[in-house]
């Protein structure tokens, strides 16, 4: 608990920076746009329509799509920028809609009276329509603030620090204290913002000075805090350019990023910034655009999702060689080397079932498949490995379910599903007494863990690359599995496990 709470200042600061700025921008866009929409009839439908469409995009996708969009524009593609744009877009609809409804809902008797006493259009808006519509607009702002606080937790996969770091990492490493701390902190922040906005609105409406002043000072303090913490790093300049280390959102990646970070600091004395829980392709895009300096990916993943190759029977060194050549030539991304283990897609089952059915290889599964339920992670059924498994083995399962990778292992252990698409180095395989089936027909390509670095790092900080080369070939599959298990089953932090690894060499 205390080590989780130690992370709170950083995560909460990130969350406050995201939500407050997104709400400010959202309001600054939506209210004027809503006002214009009530003046220009045809615009109303257009504006509300577009905002409605944005709202129907799943929030995680809305954030994730910002990464390649920003990369294409050659601006910072991961971290604060994509998150703030996504959140701002998301915050607009409730405010926009309520502004339109609020102003349209003002009794025409009042607007006529406003004209009758000699107000100009602008005075009519400021002195009559906006004050009368204010409770409705504020209700929209309150909805928006609760939404944005919640959605800001999804900024983690695009590289922005938020309370989502607790939730993503906690779910992956089975640290439910972390998940809880993240959820409670987000809920409290949402309550605080909602309460402040409500106090402000009531105070203004009832002409009470004290609550207005109090709410305004708290909000001002929060904005000041967000502003200062956002601007300070920019002013610091890049005199001490930190090495930015990325990781995707699962245990092994957290550990490896900590190892990379520890190694860089130990060998070069340079500081590092960790950006964890990134979406799978987000990390690669960020490396390519130079927003990230180094992370670990897997040769088969690059082979299939970046280079768009079919799953093949080519061996480990052929795939590795191909990846290295093509990434350097076409993507400006460099392979430092393989760490020494594979984390491949493998079919896992309860050990008891494996024994009862007398299974060893995937081909042994063929006659039993029709009675078994298969669980895969979000991307698995869309991946070439699945196609290739189908082709080589002709597996016809009774049912297939898509689930979160962090819940998949628990699901098979509890008997909710019978076979899962496991990752071969996952510590939970041993922890939950699961057994991997051998890919005897070579359906799944090799998945060597490889250290990837950006072109910028290669050119400007070659000493970092030299430091990283030391890690090549130092981690075998058993070692990785044991480290994963230390986090997933024994509750050690990825950093502690990484420190132990670095100290032991």
């Amino acid at each position, binding site marked *: 608990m205390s080590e989780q709470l130690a992370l709170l200042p950083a995560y909460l600061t990130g969350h406050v920076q995201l939500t407050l700025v997104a709400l400010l921008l959202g309001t600054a866009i939506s209210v004027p746009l809503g006002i214009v929409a009530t003046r220009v009839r045809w615009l109303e439908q257009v504006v509300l329509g577009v905002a409605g469409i944005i709202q129907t995009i799943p929030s995680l996708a809305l954030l994730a799509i910002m990464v390649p969009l920003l990369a294409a524009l050659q601006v910072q593609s991961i971290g604060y920028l994509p998150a703030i744009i996504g959140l701002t877009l998301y915050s607009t609809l409730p405010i926009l809609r309520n502004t339109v409804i609020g102003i349209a809902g003002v009794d025409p008797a*009042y607007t*006529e*009276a406003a004209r009758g*006493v*000699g107000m100009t259009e602008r005075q009519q808006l400021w002195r009559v329509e906006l004050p009368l519509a204010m409770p409705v607009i504020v209700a929209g702002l309150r909805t928006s603030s609760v939404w944005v606080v919640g959605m800001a937790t999804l900024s983690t996969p695009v590289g922005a620090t938020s309370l989502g770091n607790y939730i993503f990492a906690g779910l992956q490493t089975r640290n439910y204290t972390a998940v809880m701390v993240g959820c409670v902190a987000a809920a409290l922040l949402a309550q605080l913002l909602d309460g402040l906005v409500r106090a402000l609105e009531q105070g203004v409406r009832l002409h009470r000075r004290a609550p207005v002043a109090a709410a305004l000072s708290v909000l001002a303090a929060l904005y000041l805090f967000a502003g200062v913490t956002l601007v300070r790093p920019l002013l610091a300049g890049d005199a001490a350019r930190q090495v930015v280390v990325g990781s995707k959102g699962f245990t092994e990646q957290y550990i490896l990023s900590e190892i990379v970070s520890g190694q860089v600091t130990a060998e070069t004395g340079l500081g590092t910034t960790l950006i964890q829980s990134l979406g799978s392709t987000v990390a690669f895009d960020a490396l390519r655009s130079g927003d990230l300096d180094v992370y670990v990916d897997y040769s088969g993943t690059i082979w299939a999702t970046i280079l768009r190759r079919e799953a093949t029977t080519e061996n480990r060194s052929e795939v590795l060689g191909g990846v290295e050549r093509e990434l350097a030539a076409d993507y400006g991304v460099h392979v430092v080397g393989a760490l020494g283990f594979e984390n491949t897609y493998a079919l896992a089952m309860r050990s008891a079932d494996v024994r009862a059915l007398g299974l060893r290889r995937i081909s042994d599964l063929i006659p039993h498949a029709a009675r078994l339920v298969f669980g895969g992670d979000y991307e698995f059924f869309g991946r070439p490995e699945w196609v290739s498994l189908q082709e080589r083995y002709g597996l016809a399962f009774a049912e297939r379910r898509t689930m979160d990778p962090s819940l998949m292992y628990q699901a098979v252990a509890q008997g909710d599903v019978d076979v899962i698409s496991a990752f071969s180095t996952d510590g939970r395989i041993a922890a939950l007494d699961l057994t991997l089936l051998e890919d005897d027909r070579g359906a799944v390509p090799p998945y060597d863990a490889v250290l990837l670095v950006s072109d910028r790092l290669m050119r400007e900080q070659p000493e970092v690359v030299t430091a990283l080369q030391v890690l090549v070939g130092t981690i075998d599959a058993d070692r990785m599995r044991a480290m994963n298990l230390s986090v997933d089953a024994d509750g050690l932090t990825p950093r502690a496990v990484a420190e132990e690894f670095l100290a032991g060499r």
Partner: protein
Amino acid sequence: MIELDALTKRYGDQVVVDRLSLRVERGELVVLLGTSGCGKTTTLKMINRLVEPSDGRVLLDGADVGSLPQHELRRRIGYVFQKVGLFPHMTVFENISITPTLLDWSADRIRRRVDELLELVELDAAEMRDRRPDELSGGQQQRIGVARALAAEPTVMLLDEPFGALDPLTRDRLQQSFSRIRSQLGVTAVFVTHDLTEALLLGDRIVVMRDGHLVQEGTPHELMVNPVDEFVEQMIGTPKRQAQLVDDLLGRGTPA
């Protein structure tokens, strides 16, 4: 002095006000009288351009009202609205001081003017100033409405059935107050009503309207003595008939 010259309002094919011409002399109160839908309110609103005429023009002291920006025109003309009109988010003081504020009067001048007006409409300034419209009775609200219309010292006032929604006793008191205020200030006024008694009591002259047309204009006495047609005769005769009926009933001691 207000002059309406062949004033016309059309909505699509429908003619709501048809070539209406009328002269209101300085200090005079003219009542526009007619049943609902006869075009009397539309006529009133064309004077301060809350409704833009389709044809014809309105002259205010000889100048076409179309030549001024709308808001400047309206700041010079007091307007009392039929129903709500008072802004619910503003205090009595703020409501009354709107037009002077828009005209950039000094704070001091505005404060004195509001107190003066509250006294004029027979309300206690100290007690009323900071109240909100929803804390006032209907009669008090309409007194504030009159005060607000008079705030910027207009020479012309337009009133759209201002006392229509009030109970008879309150209406009677307000009519008397208004009558006194008007003779005290000498403003020129156009007053829309469908209440015949009100028209006869307040109007220097009455304009009877029907289907967007002017049917007859004249002093109450002229209309009574010399109605142009049966419609006017019946209309003007009604209050008198009712008064007689009431008198008869009371005279007999017990209702039939």
